[in-house]
């Protein structure tokens, strides 16, 4: 078996396009995961049982089923109910919703870490519930979970190859498409692996920086 560099080199522009798509899916999915995860965490704490219990069920359900199955579900079910989305949007939503169930647990841990005395002090000053959340509890809860949230950005990026099943033209689908023509899978998958590694390191860098910063602040 020989390693044909020209095959890899020729496919590089397409693979890079695939990487850009994968990064987009990660960015969009991650923003969704951050926002929706916080919403899940807050809803699971509301005193309204009719809201808390269904949300709890949905979160547990999504967290306990495979991402791949959820992607298939979105891909086939959304069009059936009249929602036509691009593959990238479908993939980003799938990733975002799936990871929101993880980030909601991270937020929960952060919220639990805020001492009961803070809630009581807010009450003793008659602060409304909304203000207590936005000015007292979340500003203390979120910084201490920033490192954990950052790690999910990396994990999410590494799950983007699964988007190939919903026809997102990310790196792995490029490998499959090009490979079907030239059968240079070894070269293609090697280059793809290097690209994934480079991108993951690129994402990890700001995550580590954030981690260092917030660890110092909360210490």
């Amino acid at each position, binding site marked *: 078996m020989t390693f044909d560099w020209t095959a890899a080199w020729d496919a590089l522009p397409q693979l890079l396009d695939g990487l850009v798509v994968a990064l987009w899916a990660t960015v969009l999915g991650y923003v969704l995961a951050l926002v929706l995860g916080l919403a899940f965490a807050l809803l699971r704490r509301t005193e309204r049982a009719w809201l808390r219990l269904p949300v709890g069920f949905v979160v547990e359900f999504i967290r306990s089923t495979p991402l791949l199955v959820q992607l298939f579900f979105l891909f086939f079910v959304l069009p059936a109910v009249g929602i036509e989305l691009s593959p990238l949007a479908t993939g980003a939503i799938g990733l975002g919703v799936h990871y929101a169930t993880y980030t909601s647990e991270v937020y929960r841990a952060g919220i639990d870490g805020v001492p009961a005395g803070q809630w009581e002090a807010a009450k*003793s000053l*008659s602060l409304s519930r909304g203000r207590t959340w936005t000015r007292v509890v979340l500003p*203390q809860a979120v910084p201490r979970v920033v490192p954990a949230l950052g790690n999910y950005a990396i994990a999410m990026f590494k799950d983007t190859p699964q988007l190939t099943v919903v026809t997102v033209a990310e790196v792995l689908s490029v490998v499959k498409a090009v490979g079907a023509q030239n059968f240079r899978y070894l070269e293609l998958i090697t280059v793809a692996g290097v690209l994934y590694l480079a991108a993951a390191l690129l994402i990890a860098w700001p995550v580590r920086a954030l981690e260092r910063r917030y660890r110092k602040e909360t210490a």
Partner: protein
Amino acid sequence: MTGERFISFDGVSKHFGSTTVLDDLSFDIRAGERVTLIGPSGSGKTTILRMLMTLTRPDSGTITVDGVPLFHERRGDALVPAGEAHLRRMRRHTTMVFQQYNLFPNMRVLRNVTEAPVHVLGLSRDEAEGRGRELLELVGLGDKVDAYPSQLSGGQQQRVAIARALAMRPDVLLLDEVTSALDPELAAEVLDVLRDVARTFDVTMLCVTHAMRFARDVSDRVLMFNEGRIIESAPPEQLFDAPEQVRTKEFLRSVIDET
């Protein structure tokens, strides 16, 4: 406003599991009165303050503040357990200073003192800050407005907490063992501030403390608690110098030996 009955407990009981914390307790506090609650730990003193702050509900009995039931509201002819809106309204009368200060660590000192006046009382930010600076001056921390709580000593944090509570212009100020977490020296500076507060503010004060000299200085009346009941209630000179109950004598002796 001194004279009328402002706070009433009527047959209030509270149990935590199988322990009885408050046992069919009834007492009144007049507007503007300074009352100190003393007694062994676990005798229910802190629970009284926590109920007035709506942090704990009684199992039975009624508490009224300014003639209005705290944990009940009228619906038609019936008194029903109060909803959150009623509690929120009632809470405005009262504010509390805690043993562990509980300042908001994410806000600077001045912001700690202005947050609630702006968003609860509806003061303009300028007005709240002006008043906040005055109050911080009063507690001797005029130069710390821009510090974060973590940069202050325990005694300084507690003085900020007192300023923060006063900024709400409360009718009732609850002080829950505010010096128990402090070294004697820092405790003394906090107690000095509270003596000033007692002199200058027309506020009803309920104070749970083991600082007996302070209790003697500021209180109009001292309530001695034991096992969820008030066993003796008298002006400080009388209660400290000539207690009637044996249990009070024992307790005072043990506290004085400690300090």
